[in-house]
């Protein structure tokens, strides 16, 4: 495999790994409620 292809593959793999980690999202919600039986 030539160097160009290796670099392209590394960038592709890196983006697959990095993007989900940096994804914006609501991670957790905690509520305190009253009147629950």
């Amino acid at each position, binding site marked *: 495999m030539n160097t160009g292809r290796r670099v392209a593959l590394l960038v592709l793999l890196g983006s697959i790994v990095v993007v989900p980690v940096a994804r*914006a*999202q*609501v*991670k957790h*919600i*905690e509520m*305190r409620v009253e009147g*629950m039986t």
Partner: protein
Amino acid sequence: MKQHLGRQAGVQTVEVSLLDGKVDVIPKEDGQIDPAQLLKATHDSGVTAAEMDITARGKIVKDSSGSLALQVEPNRSFAFAPNELSKGLESLAGTQTVVTVRGQLYKKPAGKKKADLSAPLKLLILEVQKKE
């Protein structure tokens, strides 16, 4: 209530603790969860939400009125209730920095029996956990 909340869009799991009146909601990663809708669903199930805290990750943006907000989805952001912690994030507005914060999105007004769920939710930052 657990089933009612579990049916809301974007909800993965709901854990209810009867002992201390705590409800933990783990959202799916599809970004569909709407805290305002959860509050309404809680109210509709016959219980009163006293407080709602969220942990969210997103970018700091300035909305049309110039106030700071945390953008968690392209079409969803939470305006900050100004405090020292939100002021500390002002320099990150418009940058690519992703921050993780924990904050209070809703608190039932003291002395009121009936909650006002129509008011826009503001995020009072309690903790800045991470800047990436």
